Each structure stands twice: as structure tokens, then as C-alpha cells.
């Protein structure tokens, strides 16, 4: 039904709202690289090693969730046709909470300090609550329901489950509460990757890949059913893992998830091979790398489900492929469209479309492709380092840190370009669009 008050295609939030998230994220990626360099092979020995837990959460919370939260606050008003209430305040709270909470969590793991883990649990729990309330408020007032907002809702629900499971684990680490169920150790990362990151990426990809890269559309059955079906199977698999661990039901449902997400990644790769836009483009290459790693991670997970016993190295390899290979690559690719576009968009509202430098003048192809090469090398080194940690773990960490620094530099260049030009070029005679500038 139409609700004119909620109609706000124009109400994109001020550029500072998403930018602070995007510019903080590389710092946490750098921190993950430094943890690998500092701790070396120990960080890749097992996914439960303190250094591995610290590095993992720097990537998942400090980088992935940081960017995804910023992008959601930016996109939600636009795609739902409804503003996020008090968006500047909500953004400041969420950004501060994620920054402080992630630093405390990583520090708690590295230093073995339960107090820091307690602080992290409280801060991150509260932060996610604010994010969920902000998103829910906008979605509740949405002018229309569409596939993207549905997918986003499920993704946010996935985040809630991830954090709830994380708090169960934190109760064990920080407060010494006996773990209610061993399954929580497997469910927490699965919900973070498949629920939160996977569903949000899929919901966005169904729209963004065909439109921005001019590929054929995803099969109708996939766009219509994937997010809802994946969410449903994820719940069923979780219940099986919790109440019927190592049962055939758990195995079959787990395999269904691996096959389903693998099919999504494979479909995306096939569509991208058939894209109409043939120009060289870092974003497309980042997405291809990300989807290939997602498919490999799904294959690895399927093997892990079928083969019983200790397989610490395979588990670490799956994590490396899913985090550095899939999530970081896809997010890097998105950032290289979002940040230069936001800079251009706000610039042209200030100085007029004719005088605003286009996106490739704001950030050229070359620095993006340099980053792509270093990032791809870091992913490859990380995967090989799982099998050959001495001396590769530290070298891989160094490559990851370098990739983070290049990303940070590139985003700063784009963000400063927006400010420098806007500062010197205000032209009062130029367009009506000026009133939209923030």
C-alpha cells in the first residue's frame, strides 16, 4: 500500500554516514594481517587458536560487518523507499560500537583477558541491537516490498542468530559458563558466513550483477527462492546439528547447503562469463575471484561434512577461502564502485555534472588493479600457508596487510578528492540538484 510519508527515493543519507564505515574497515583488515605476521604458523594451526580467532573476528566484524552495515544504512532508504530514522545518530552508535567491540574481542583473544571478552560481548550485543532496530524501522515503513529488501531482512536475521550464538560462546570463554551444546562452535561461523554474509551478498548480487555488469539474469527460480530456501535449510540444519549431531539428517541438510551456495557461486561465475560489458574492470575481477573462492569453500565444506574425524587444516582452509577469498574480495569489488560513485555524486551536486571529474579520475583503474593483484596473491599465499605454514604464514600475513594498506590508500584518495573539489568549486549558478547535496 502506498504511504506517501515513507516515500523517500531522494533521502540518501549524508556521505559521512557510509564513508566512516568504509574507511575504518581496511584498518581491521590490516590488523588481521599483523596478527598473522606476529603469530606466524600458530595463527593457521587450528580455527580455535587464539590468534586465529582474533584474526577471524577482525575480518568478519571489523571488515565485513563494518562495510555491510555502512552499505545497508546507505542502501536501505533507497531500496525500501523509506528512511532509516535518526540515521546519523544510528550510524555513529553502530560505527563506534563495532570499532570498540571488535578491538576488545580481538584483544581479549590475543591477550587471553576475559574482561576484554566481556566488554566485547556487551558492546557488540548492544551494537547489533541498534543495527537491527534501525533496519527494522526502515523496513517496517517500506513503501514497497521487493526481493532485495526481503533478502536484506533475512540477512539481518542471520546476523542476529550469529551474534546470539557468539554470545553463547562468549559466555564460555569469558564467564566460564559450560557450553550448552558443542554444535554452537560449528553453527556460529556457519550463520555468520551463510546467514549474514551469504544471504546479503546473494540478495544484492541478484540485482547488481545483471545490471552493473550487463549479464543475463539469474534463473527466475533462483532469484525467487534462493534466499528463503537457504534460510529455511540453515534453520533445519542447525536444529539437526543441535539435537541430532552426526545424524544422517544433519549430513544431508549440510550437504544441501554446500550444494545450494555452491550453485549460487557457480551461476554467478557463468553469468559473468557471458557479460556484455567487456571493459577491463577491477570490480568484475574481484567478484570472479570471490565467487570462485566461494565455490571452492563449498566444495571443501562438503568434504568436511562427509569425512569424519579431525581435519583442522581443511577447516582453516575453508575459513581462509570463505573470508579472505570470498567475503573480502566481493566487498573490495563493491567498495570500488560505491566510494568513487558517492564521491562523484556529491561532487556533481556541488559543482555540476559538467565540472565534476568522472569516477576514473576520482580513482583510476591502475591502483585498483594493483590492489587486485596483491589481494589475489594474499589469498593464494594464505591457502598454501595452511599446508606449509613455515615460512608462508608470515609472508601471507604480510601480503594481506599490504593489500589492506593499498585499499585504505585508494579509498582515502577517492574520499579526499570529493572534499578537495567540493571545497574549491562551489558555483552558485549551478543546478537545482545542489539542494540534494549533503
Amino acid at each position, binding site marked *: 500500500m*502506498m504511504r*506517501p510519508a515513507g*516515500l*523517500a*527515493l*531522494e533521502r540518501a543519507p549524508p556521505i559521512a554516514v557510509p564513508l566512516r564505515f568504509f574507511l575504518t574497515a581496511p584498518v581491521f583488515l590490516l590488523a588481521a594481517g599483523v596478527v598473522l605476521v606476529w603469530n606466524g604458523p600458530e595463527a593457521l594451526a587450528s580455527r580455535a587458536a587464539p590468534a586465529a580467532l582474533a584474526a577471524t573476528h577482525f575480518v568478519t566484524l571489523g571488515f565485513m560487518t563494518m562495510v555491510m552495515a555502512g552499505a545497508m544504512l546507505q542502501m536501505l532508504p*533507497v*531500496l*525500501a*523507499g523509506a528512511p532509516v530514522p535518526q540515521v546519523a545518530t544510528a550510524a555513529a552508535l553502530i560505527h563506534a560500537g563495532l570499532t570498540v567491540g571488535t578491538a576488545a574481542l580481538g584483544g581479549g583473544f590475543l591477550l587471553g583477558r576475559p574482561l576484554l571478552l566481556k566488554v566485547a560481548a556487551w558492546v557488540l550485543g548492544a551494537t547489533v541491537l541498534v543495527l537491527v532496530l534501525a533496519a527494522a524501522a526502515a523496513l517496517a515503513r517500506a*513503501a*514497497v516490498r*521487493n526481493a*532485495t*529488501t526481503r533478502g536484506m531482512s533475512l540477512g539481518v536475521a542471520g546476523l542476529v542468530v550469529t551474534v546470539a550464538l557468539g554470545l553463547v560462546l562468549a559466555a564460555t570463554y569469558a564467564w566460564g559458563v559450560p557450553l550448552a551444546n558443542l554444535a554452537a562452535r560449528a553453527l556460529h561461523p556457519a550463520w555468520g558466513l551463510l546467514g549474514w554474509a551469504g544471504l546479503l551478498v546473494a540478495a544484492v548480487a541478484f*540485482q*547488481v550483477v545483471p*545490471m*552493473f555488469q*550487463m549479464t543475463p539474469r539469474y534463473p527466475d527460480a533462483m532469484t525467487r527462492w534462493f534466499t528463503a530456501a537457504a534460510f529455511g535449510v540453515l534453520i533445519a540444519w542447525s536444529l539437526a546439528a543441535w539435537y541430532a549431531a552426526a545424524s544422517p539428517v544433519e549430513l544431508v541438510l549440510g550437504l544441501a547447503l554446500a550444494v545450494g551456495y555452491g550453485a549460487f557461486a557457480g551461476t554467478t561465475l557463468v553469468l559473468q562469463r557471458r557479460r*556484455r*560489458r*567487456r*571493459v*577491463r*574492470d577491477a570490480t568484475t575481477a574481484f567478484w570472479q575471484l570471490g565467487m570462485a573462492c566461494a565455490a571452492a569453500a563449498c566444495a571443501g565444506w562438503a568434504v568436511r561434512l562427509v569425512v569424519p574425524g579431525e581435519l583442522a587444516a581443511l577447516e582453516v582452509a575453508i575459513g581462509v577461502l570463505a573470508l579472505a577469498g570470498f567475503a573480502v574480495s566481493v566487498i573490495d569489488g563493491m567498495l570500488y*564502485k560505491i566510494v568513487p*560513485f558517492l564521491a*562523484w*555524486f556529491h561532487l*556533481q551536486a556541488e559543482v*555540476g*555534472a*559538467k565540472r565534476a571529474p*568522472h*569516477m*576514473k*579520475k576520482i580513482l583510476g583503474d591502475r591502483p585498483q588493479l594493483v590492489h587486485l593483484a596483491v589481494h589475489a596473491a594474499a589469498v593464494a599465499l594464505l591457502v598454501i600457508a595452511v599446508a606449509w605454514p613455515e615460512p608462508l604464514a608470515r609472508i601471507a600475513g604480510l601480503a594481506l596487510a599490504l593489500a589492506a594498506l593499498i585499499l585504505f590508500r585508494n579509498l582515502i584518495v577517492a574520499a579526499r578528492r570529493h572534499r578537495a573539489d567540493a571545497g574549491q568549486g562551489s558555483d552558485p549558478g549551478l*543546478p*537545482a*540538484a545542489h539542494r*540534494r547535496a549533503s
Partner: protein
Amino acid sequence: MSRIAETMARDHAACDERFGDAEAAAAAGDLPRAGEALAAFAAALERHLGVEEDALFPAFERRTGMADGPTEMMRIEHGEMRELVRSLGAALDAGDAAEFLGLADTLNVLMQQHNLKEEQVLYALLDEALGDEADALLAALVSK
């Protein structure tokens, strides 16, 4: 009822095809062919924007009484697109393929985020408000 949404989304894709031709030709260094494709794209784009600005938007504004709501913001973005299309022509005239490709990338992001807003939100509202007169309003697109 999704007559407007379906027709207009299909026309977005048709415009994209021509845009893709122009960009691919410029990327291959064939500027004359890029010029022809750009002209075809500009014509398709104008026809699409015309249907919105001359038929759909005014009818929507009459029905709902919202003159400076979402339709006004879409018009502003249409103006920005036209400006970039003019700059694309100027880049071709200057024989500057790199400039053309940078502008084309910018136009593509602007155009696609605009289309996303229309396809995900606005067209659904148009169908809801104007469903009964959709065929008449879309006549300029359908009977070409």
C-alpha cells in the same frame, strides 16, 4: 498488476544493450562505431525518459498529488544522465577514448542505481496508482 514495471524494466535492458555496444566499441578503439552506437543509445534513452517525464510522471502526480516527491528526484537524475551523455559525445569528438570510458563507467553506475530505484520502488507505485491507464500511458514505447 505490473504492466508498467515489466514494460519499463524491459526497456531499461534495451537501453543497456545499446549503451554496452557503445562502450565495447570505444574499449576496442573503434570510435566511429562508438559514435553510431552512442547515437542509438541516446535516442533510446530519450524515448524512455520521455515516456516517464511526459506521460507516467505527470499522471502519477495528478493521481497522488505528489509533485515534488520521488518523481521530482528521478527528473533531476535524468538531467544528470543527459549531461553525461553530452559529455560522452564531446569525448568522442575530441577522440579521447579514455575520457569516454571513464564517463561511461560513471554513467553506468548512475543509470543502474537509478534503474534499481525505479524497478524496485517507483514502478510498483506507478502500477498501483495508474494500473487502469497503463496501456495508454505506455503507448509511445509500445507502438514504435
